[in-house]
């Protein structure tokens, strides 16, 4: 399989995540969509690294995984806080701030 295939796979995963972010109403689902988007990039990085023989991409992927995990942790913490204060996890109901 060539580089092209990996890139296509990554693009598809990215778009699935994107679709999730735009269409889901539940905040947890939106978070999952973002996770998909972030992780699809790892496929890219590793593929680029593999095909060019340069390790930077692999290292980068490790960093990305760490950062993605912290983002997920923080995201869930904010959602829990939100649920405690507002008693809802539906994104569309969070519109105190607008205009």
């Amino acid at each position, binding site marked *: 399989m060539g580089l092209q295939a990996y890139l296509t796979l990554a693009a598809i995963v990215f778009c699935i995540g994107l679709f999730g972010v*735009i269409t889901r109403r539940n905040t947890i689902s*939106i978070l999952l969509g973002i996770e998909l988007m972030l992780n699809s990039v790892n496929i890219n990085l590793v593929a680029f690294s593999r095909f060019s023989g340069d390790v930077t991409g692999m290292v980068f992927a490790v960093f990305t995984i760490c950062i993605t995990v912290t983002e997920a942790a923080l995201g869930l913490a904010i959602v829990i806080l939100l649920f405690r204060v507002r008693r809802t996890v539906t*994104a569309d109901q969070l*519109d105190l*701030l607008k*205009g």
Partner: protein
Amino acid sequence: MLALIPLFPLLGFLVNALFGRRLSKTVSGGVASAVMVASFAVSAFTVWGLAGLPVEERAIDQTVYTWIASGDFVLDLALRLDPLSAVMILVITGIGSLIHIYSTAYMHDEVDSEFARYFSYLNLFAAFMLVLVLGANFLVMFVGWEGVGLCSYLLIGFWFKKPSAIDAGKKAFVVNRIGDYAFILGMLLLFARFGTLDFQQLAAVVAGIPPEVGVFGVLSIASLLLFVGATGKSAQIPLYVWLPDAMEGPTPVSALIHAATMVTAGVYMIGRNAVLFSHAPETLMIVAVVGALTALMAATIGLVQNDMKRVLAYSTVSQLGLMFLAMGVGAFGAGIFHLYTHAFFKALLFLGSGAVIHALHGEQDIRNMGGLKKDLPITYWTFLIGALAIAGVPLLSGFFSKDELLFEAFREGHTVLWLMGAVASLMTAAYMFRLVFLTFHGERRHDAPAPVHQLEDESAAQAHDDSHGAGARPHDAPPAMAFVLIVLALGSVLAGYVGVPHALGGHNQLAAWLAPSFAAPGGVAEGLHVLSEGEAALEFTLMGVSTAIALGGIAIAVLIWLRRPQIAASMAERYPVVHRWLLNKYYVDEAYDATVVQPIRVGSERALWRGFDVRVIDGAVNGVGAIVAGSANILRLLQTGMVRTYAGSMLIGVVFILGYYLWR
């Protein structure tokens, strides 16, 4: 030395702004007036020094420090005293001092902190105005330009308990912003094209370029943009609408800012860039036409106004129009001459009206006046002198300057413009004496319908009521005010004698004095135009015409408003349409309202879910604000508060960017 001139008032501002609340009125008023007098003394001293220099070296430069320097762009915070700015600083500090002194009496009924606030603004205004005229480059001038604007709004809205005052301040602000916009663009264009903003360097560069006759090149565009800026500041068509409303401010403010100094900044700016404007004859023509039209239109409106200060306001607009007319026909000296004499008699007239208003506890409607000659003798006589001067009666200051200005317009071959100026002068004489007769002659009347918003005006009136019991006979101006009125009356008589024309055996010293300021640096100052035999005869003839105009205007006023007041009424009856047009100021405000404000107001009220800040769109020209506010409220709809909409917006951005790159 030069820097001291604006520094004194700045010092006064700091004292009153920082400690004013703890100072008594005597101290804060005294400090404010003292710094102005000090500034005047320094000005007089430096101008004296300037006059001692030979003509070709008459300029004192002072670089305070290098303001901005980066790469090859160096801009100094530089002041320059040349004959033109010398005239201006003397007017500003001289008349400014008088008005400060007058204000100590006029504003005496305000509480201490308000009194100090008033004087701090007034001092700050004087400082900025001096920076404006002393600045040696556009950027320094712009500092003053913006600063005086700011102080002007603050002072118009000084009595903020009156909603009308707040609205007037807002209107002045919006209109001036339009002008400022053009002004900044003009500056940027000049800077981009010539790489300098120094007036002298600019003049030197421009002098090497052939005038743009018949073409509309960079010089014409830049100068036109600057002129649009000037129409805002100096209340010319189409941006004049704010000045009459600005009369909501205290009367000394109207005298200082909205008659004698700030509104003349536009005229000064053109004089300062005389070389630039002379190289853009197309723009100059526009300046002249706009000036003449403004002079004529404002004079006609002035004929029927009933508010004492509004008559004077329209008169100011009209006289400023005459100055622009002079600038536009290339008679820069004549324009500045009229600026200078106008400062005296218009300040006098405003302060005189202030004395009347003060005596009548805030009454401004001339239909409720009359017969005040007996009670207010000093005010009456000084006011009369001012009226004679502005009407152009021979041997008073206004005669010399107005005559000079009209003569130049005629000599340059602009007969139509001359005619417009002459008609405006005729009307000036008429409405000024209408004002004099209705205010001071006859019997006291109470003809005006009760003011609609009496309640709102009370706060202003109440200031005066405190010390004078209502019902008592009006009493004449207190000493401080009377003193100022007398000094200004003397000035109105004598100020013109610096510019006695050759035809009358004078030497027109002011024109000779100013001439170097209008010439390119290094270039030979165009020799003063020596009048030929024929031209001298022409000047005599025109002088006769001017005199006839002045006397004719007064005669009309005598006939209509003094002898047979019913004529005015019957004329209003016979030509109700004309009268109504004039009384409603040609419906300009209404036109703005109908074309700009109403559609947006109706549209936005129907379309929008959220309450509209009505005050934003109050007033007429605020329509510009309304356009912005209207689109703002539509754009706000996009900000739904829903996070998915936001993500969608970002996605649209991404698709747009990637689409642009991949499929362009």
